[in-house]
């Protein structure tokens, strides 16, 4: 997921020109900005994007040093675990469970507002969520709520087809399964 396309998408979310994004010879993603400065590595690139952006999301992500550190932690987590992990059936299940639990009492990953952490994890877990059957989504109600909330925002879905979460009220007759 630490690929070129994701960086471009997140740059769009933040309303920043992505500049030249490519993989270098060691397959590490790099970004060359309009000022001709090159940074390498997913987390570093995201940080540079946030610094250039005036968007609400970027501001939220740098609200305090504590928030900044937590955001950084989630970005690393997305790169190191979410992205590779979602390709393995067993690890993926664990990931979904963990996120679902986390979102029982949180609306967003960091603080109480949308940050880069949400964006990074959103794009990292997108394919996995897309592969879920409606019944699976029932089992991850809290994760589904968070995901659906993000995908509804035009700056985030960026014209991609929205995943369907409408069967979610099936839980009316399957009460208790989501806890």
């Amino acid at each position, binding site marked *: 997921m630490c690929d070129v396309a994701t960086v471009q998408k997140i740059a769009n979310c933040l309303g920043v020109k992505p500049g030249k994004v490519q993989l270098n010879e060691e397959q590490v993603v790099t970004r060359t900005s309009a000022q001709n400065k090159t940074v390498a590595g997913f987390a570093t690139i995201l940080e540079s994007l946030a610094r250039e952006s005036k968007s609400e999301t970027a501001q939220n992500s740098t609200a305090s040093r504590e928030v900044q550190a937590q955001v950084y932690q989630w970005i690393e987590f997305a790169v190191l675990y979410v992205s590779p992990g979602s390709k393995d059936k067993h690890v993926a299940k664990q990931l979904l469970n963990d996120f679902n639990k986390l*979102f029982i009492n*949180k*609306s967003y990953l960091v603080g109480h507002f949308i940050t880069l952490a949400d964006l990074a994890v959103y794009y990292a877990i997108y394919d996995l969520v897309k592969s879920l059957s409606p019944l699976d989504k029932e089992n991850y109600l*809290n994760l589904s709520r968070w995901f659906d*909330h993000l995908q509804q925002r035009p700056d985030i879905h960026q014209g991609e087809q929205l995943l369907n979460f409408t069967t979610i009220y099936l839980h009316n007759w399957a009460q208790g399964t989501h806890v």
Partner: protein
Amino acid sequence: MSTGTLYTYPENFRAYKALIAAQYSGAKVKVAENFTFGETNKSEQFLKKFPSGKVPAFETADGKYLSESNAIAYFLATEQLRGGKCPFVQAQVQQWISFADNEIVPVSCAWVFPLLGILPQQKNSTAKQDAELVLQQLNKKLIDATYLAGERITLADIVVFSSLLHLFESVLEPSVRSAYPSLTRWFLTILNQPQVQAVLKDYKLCEKALVFDPKKYAEFQAKNKTGAAAQPAKPKEEKKPKEKKEPAPKKEKEPAEELDAADEALALEPKSKDPFDSLPKGTFNFDDFKRVYSNEEEAKSIPYFFEKFDAENYSIWLGEYKYNEELSKVFMSCNLITGMFQRLDKMRKQAFASVCLFGEDNNSTISGIWVWRGQELAFPLSPDWQIDYEVYDWKKLDAKSEETKKLVTQYFSWAGADKEGRKFNQGKIFK
């Protein structure tokens, strides 16, 4: 950008709606200084601007006047808070604002205000159960929605949030909150928005639910009366009873709970009608009899019963369990009886019963003497009461006959044996 002056007493949850909305839009709102509830808003000058004399009330910099908290919040909000460009989301915002006013505020007042000593405790109040229903609805909505309307914070969230502040502060202690995880998640998200934090600086979630303290209410009433006589109700004076419990930050708390007439009416409105209301009210007073029965020997209370009993409007019944042969352990049979009593809870006011278990394990019978208002079987009056009564055979007794007197005496004094001679084992009183 709008500017103006907001009139309110401190920590008024209705004023919070406007103040939070203003934080989002950046509107400059000055809270009127030297506002004294009951004085400022009753002054001629104030009434000329705001005929209702209610707060919060808003005066724009160019001399226009707005009352009603939701309208003020709407005026001060941004387009996004009003629901954005989509008419459907705008309508949803209105829907939740009405929900807050019609569903949340009445039950919240009815539950919390008696605990704060502002209203008398209602006997058999259903406020708590009513509030639980509303909270369940909200929790359900928020399982799969981050915010109430659309995908952004709107006035719907701000208004519903403000209406829930009392509940989350006074009665929803952690163990109770845990029944509403999604609602709590949403509440915390709203509470921790920087714009909300800027308005609610010292707000703390409930650690331990308040319990009713009759002394507090008496003190509040006393203060209120003297205050009203000397100078028109000055809420500042009502601070004292609370301060004992909640120190510094809560100081200005009392005026916030000052009810306006509408709230008071809402809070006092009975939530569900008593099904017995349709029947004529006789002279027999259940409360009096129950008091005598609990405090006196049967030798006194049973004659008292027959002396006061009003056979015209009340009736005595013998209820016998149909499936005695299925009864096994005594404690299980007792649970059967108390379970039925619990399900008939709302009948208590207009009924009395003594139900006895005769015999021992695997050889026992249940039967009881029931008294209630009306001449017919009372259970069909309410759908809530129809769970158990069909497993009993009901026989109406002639209140005048000697036989009935004997039966009543036996059951009320928990003595004797059933028809087959099984000895009295345990009795339960429904009162």
